[in-house]
């Protein structure tokens, strides 16, 4: 008894560390759900939204000068058009490569549409180790775990996807956590629409997205467009991921690793589209 009294603080210290390690272990294998802070969490996410918007406004106003406002608007319009055209090109390339099923595929892609929720980023993890962010929409808006998050633009013709951002990892009533494509725990199956071969992509701590083809004899060319393949049934097929930036031979020389330039610039994300399945 005296021993406990004398070393109470040390025992408490090591006990807390032990409990936290157990919690990390259970949480990492999915045996323990994340903490929902309830009303307090909603309050914090609300304040985060205000702070994020303030920061965004300040940053935008710092860079924008009155004279270039018009130019910026034109630029946005042109960028949207470019994204729209790029999207069409990708779809057409994909169809041409599968000429046998040309008509059927075309019809299918024409009718491809998903329900979506527009969310706003309210917090970003800016640490060197992870790449995650939080959005201001949650279960109350119909968002569920494993929903796909993309960057898109709304045009007169509808929603045009720019590229894959990541996946919803956890939801609360009014906010959701998203793991981005750059994070190491994010794995995506892809299809190279130029050679119609599939493989797996994964983010990493250094911020690179790398991957390999299931068929080790297949090689990619720099500039090849990659889309989600839908294998594994987590990611919806045909979501644009990015282009092949580099092809690297692995140490055993029999396989090749591809380095991908994601379509989305992850430092400049504000509005995101969550595809609700």
């Amino acid at each position, binding site marked *: 008894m005296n021993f406990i009294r004398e070393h109470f*603080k040390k025992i*408490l*210290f090591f006990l*807390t*560390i032990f409990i*936290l*390690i157990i*919690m*990390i272990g259970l*949480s*990492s294998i999915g045996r*323990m759900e*994340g*903490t*929902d*802070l309830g009303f307090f*969490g909603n309050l*914090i*996410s609300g*304040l*985060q*939204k205000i*702070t*994020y918007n*303030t*920061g*965004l406004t*300040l*940053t935008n106003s710092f860079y924008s000068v009155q004279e270039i406002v018009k130019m910026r608007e034109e630029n946005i319009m042109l960028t949207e058009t470019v994204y729209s055209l790029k999207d069409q090109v990708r779809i057409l390339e994909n169809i041409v490569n599968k000429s046998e099923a040309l008509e059927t595929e075309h019809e299918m892609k024409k009718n491809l549409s998903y329900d979506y929720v527009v969310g706003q980023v*309210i*917090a*970003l*993890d*800016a*640490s*060197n*180790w*992870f790449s*995650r*962010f*939080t959005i201001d929409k949650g279960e109350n808006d119909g968002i569920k775990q494993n929903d796909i998050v993309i960057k898109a633009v709304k045009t007169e013709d509808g929603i045009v996807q720019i590229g894959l951002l990541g996946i919803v*990892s*956890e939801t609360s009533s009014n*906010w959701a*956590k998203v*793991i981005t494509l750059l994070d*190491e*725990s994010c794995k995506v199956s892809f299809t190279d629409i130029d050679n119609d071969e599939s493989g797996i992509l994964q983010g*990493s*701590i*250094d*911020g*690179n997205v790398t991957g390999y083809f299931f068929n080790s004899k297949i090689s990619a060319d720099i500039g090849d467009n990659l889309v989600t393949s839908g294998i594994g049934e987590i990611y919806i097929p045909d979501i644009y991921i990015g282009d092949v930036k580099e092809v690297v031979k692995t140490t055993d020389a029999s396989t090749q690793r591809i380095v991908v330039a994601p379509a989305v610039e992850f*430092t400049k994300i504000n509005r995101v589209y969550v595809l609700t399945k």
Partner: protein
Amino acid sequence: MKRIGLMALLIVIFFIFQTSFMVFFNYFNFIPNFSLILLVIFAMLSDGLTAGILGIITGMLYDAMIFDVFGIYTLIYFFIGAIIGSFSDDMFRENYIIYSTVTGISTIVMHFLQYIILFFLRFKVQTAVSVLPGIIFETAINAVLVIFVLKFVIYLFDLFKVKI
């Protein structure tokens, strides 16, 4: 109680500031960690138990609001807070250089612990060398900014007539 309440409130405010405002200043792949700076200051001014609790509050905010694996940041911030708090009585609290040194060391320890935890969670930590320059810059900037944050904290505690 008022003292701990004010400390906890500042931790929440700094967390919001860190995750929702400071991200706009991430031009060179590093930003100062105000949550850690604040924890170090509070730990230096408290005992191990109080600092441990403040560390848990800081870490829990990160784990609950941003990360899906619960406990990583809670463990790291608890560890840093409790250790500094336990030894704070032996340190010369009036010396700013002590605060800078402890903050610098804490930044390195925080990243080292992240590395260790990620290693055991089977992350590919061999690519971690690429984040080293960012960590060095972050350590340096944290060590400088702690002095300004300390002055701000002292000003706030004086304003609310709370004894540090």
